[in-house]
C-alpha cells in the first residue's frame, strides 16, 4: 500500500482519561486504515477539528505516542482554551477529524548513545513517542520532566518504560525543587538534547546546550492556521529567514534559530 505523507480522516476515541488537573490523555483509532501506513515520526503533530464548533480553525496537537499494534494514537491535551477543553470533554466513542501526520519530527539520526529528552508541562507529549522509537533503535534515553507539582508530572510511568526519569517540580513535591533548567541531571554529559515545553524553558535549555556544546533540538508551537505550509502564519525566524513551523518544523536544531 502506498505510504501517504499526509491524510485527513476520522478517529474514534477509545479512551479519554483525565490524567491530571486540566490534562487528558486521549487514545484514538482511525475509523479507516492503519496508522502504520502513514510512517508517523516522533515529533510530528496532527490538526484536529475541535468538537461542537468550539473553534473555527483546527488545533495543532503533538502526537504523544503511536501504538502500531493496537493501531492507536495517543494525544496528550491540556485544557487551555475552548478547543482543547472541548476535546478533553469528548466521551469515549466520539469521532474527531484529523489531518495527520504533519511536520518534520525529531532527527533521530543525531541521537547518539545517550540522549536527554526534556519536557515541560504538556510539552512532554512528543517525547514519549521519541523515547519509544529510540528504544527500538537500541538507545536508552534519559528523561527530564518538569511540572508545577507532583500531581502535574505527566505520564511518568510511561516514560519509565523507555529510560530513566528525572523530575523537577516548582514546589519540590516530586523530584528536585525548581525548574528543569536547574536539575542536577544537566551536570551529566549527553550526546543530544531533545526539548519541548514553554518558550522560556526551551530558550534556557538552548543556552545550557550551547554552553555544553551539546547538540539540541526544540519543538516549537507557534500559532498556526493550515498546518501544511500554505498560509505562512506560523513562521519562525531562522538562519534561512522566516520558515513555517508547521512544515519546516515544529522541530528545529537550535543552530537554525536566532535565539
Amino acid at each position, binding site marked *: 500500500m502506498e505510504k501517504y505523507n*499526509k491524510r485527513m480522516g476520522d478517529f474514534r476515541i477509545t479512551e479519554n482519561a483525565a490524567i491530571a488537573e486540566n490534562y487528558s490523555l486521549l487514545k484514538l483509532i482511525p475509523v479507516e486504515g492503519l496508522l502504520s501506513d502513514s510512517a508517523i515520526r516522533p515529533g510530528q503533530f496532527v490538526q484536529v477539528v475541535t468538537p461542537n464548533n468550539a473553534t473555527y*480553525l483546527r488545533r495543532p496537537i503533538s502526537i504523544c505516542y503511536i501504538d502500531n499494534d493496537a493501531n492507536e494514537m495517543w494525544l496528550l491535551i491540556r485544557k487551555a482554551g475552548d478547543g482543547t477543553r472541548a476535546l478533553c470533554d469528548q466521551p469515549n466513542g466520539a469521532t474527531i477529524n484529523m*489531518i495527520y501526520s504533519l511536520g518534520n519530527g525529531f532527527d533521530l539520526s543525531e541521537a547518539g548513545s545517550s540522549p536527554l529528552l526534556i519536557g515541560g508541562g504538556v510539552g512532554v507529549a512528543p517525547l514519549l513517542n521519541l523515547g519509544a522509537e529510540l528504544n527500538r533503535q537500541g538507545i536508552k534515553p534519559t528523561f527530564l520532566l518538569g511540572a508545577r507539582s507532583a500531581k502535574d508530572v505527566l505520564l511518568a510511568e510511561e516514560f519509565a518504560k523507555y529510560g530513566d526519569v528525572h523530575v523537577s517540580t516548582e514546589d519540590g513535591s516530586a523530584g528536585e525543587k525548581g525548574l528543569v533548567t536547574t536539575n542536577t541531571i544537566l551536570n551529566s554529559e549527553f550526546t543530544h538534547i531533545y526539548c519541548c515545553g514553554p518558550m522560556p524553558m526551551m530558550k534556557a535549555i538552548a543556552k545550557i546546550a550551547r554552553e555544553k556544546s551539546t547538540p539540541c533540538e526544540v519543538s516549537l508551537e507557534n500559532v498556526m492556521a*493550515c498546518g*501544511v505550509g500554505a*498560509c*505562512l502564519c506560523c513562521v519562525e525566524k531562522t538562519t534561512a529567514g*522566516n520558515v513555517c513551523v508547521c512544515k519546516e518544523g515544529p522541530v528545529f536544531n537550535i543552530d537554525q534559530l536566532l535565539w
Partner: protein
Amino acid sequence: MANLNVNIGNLSLKNPVLTASGTFGYGEEFADFIDLNRLGGFIVKGTTLEPRQGNDYPRMVETPSGMLNAVGLQNKGVEYFISEIYPRLLQYDSEIIVNISGSSIDDYRKVAEMLAPLDRIRAIEVNISCPNVKSGGMAFGTTTEGAASVTKAVREAFPKTLIVKLSPNVTSIADIARAVEAEGADSVSLINTLMGMAIDVERQRPYLSTITGGLSGAAVRPVAVRMVWQVSKAVKIPVIGLGGIMNGRDAIEFMLAGARAIEVGTANFINPAVTVEIVDYMNDYCERHGVKDINEIVGMI
C-alpha cells in the same frame, strides 16, 4: 452532468472552482489530499519582484467564524517562481494563475512582463488590495485613480487574461471595478480581506505584530456576497467571487449573486479537500435544479 466550464476573458476553466492566493501555497501542499487536476485552477501565492520576508510573527489570530492574518506577502520573488516553481506545476492540467503584488507601479509591470512569456500562465491576478504591507498593496486599491494606474501598466505588459483583485475597504467597490474595467482588465476578483484588529485584553497588546491585519473566513461572507452583487451589476467583465466560501452552498450563493467563478481561501485550512467537494456539490446542485449549464445561474439575483 451539467456543463461546469466557465470563461474568464480568454481563460477557459473546466469548472468555476479556483483557490485563493496565499491559502493554497503552490498547490503542491494539498496534493496529498486532493487531485489538483479536478480544480478549475489554482492561484499561486502573491509574488513580488524581489523576495520578501513578510511581517514578524505573530501573524494570525482566530476571530469569530474567521481569522485575521498579517503575512505581508512573504515570497521568494518572481525569478524563483519562474525557475523553481513553475516547472513543477506543469504536471497539472488545471489553470495556473499567478497573483502579483508590488510596491510601485513599475514593480507590477516588471513582474507581469516576466510572467508573460510562460506558456502555461494564461492569467494573472493583480493584487491591489493587500492590507498587510506598508507601501503599495491596498493603497492602490482604495482609489479609482490608483486602481486604474496599476491596471493600465499591467495591461500594457501582459497580453493574456488580466484579473484585478479588489479591496473591500472602500466606500464604493463598484466605482473601483468600473475604473479597472475601463483600463482593460478582463475580470475582477473580490473580496480581498477586510482590515481588522484584535487585542489580547489580558496582556493588553494586539495579537498581530502589525496591530491590524486582514479578516477572512465565513464571518465576511455576507459582505463579500453583497459586493459581488453590486460589482456584477456595475461592470460587463466577469466577476470572480471570494470571501468566506466554506462549502458548495456558499459557492453557489456567490454565483447567484453574479460571480462567474469563485475562489476558496480560508476553508482550505479547515478542510483541505473542500475544493473538490465544492466541484461535486456544483454537479449535484445543477442536477437538483435542472441546470444544464452552470453559466445559467450566474447573476440570477
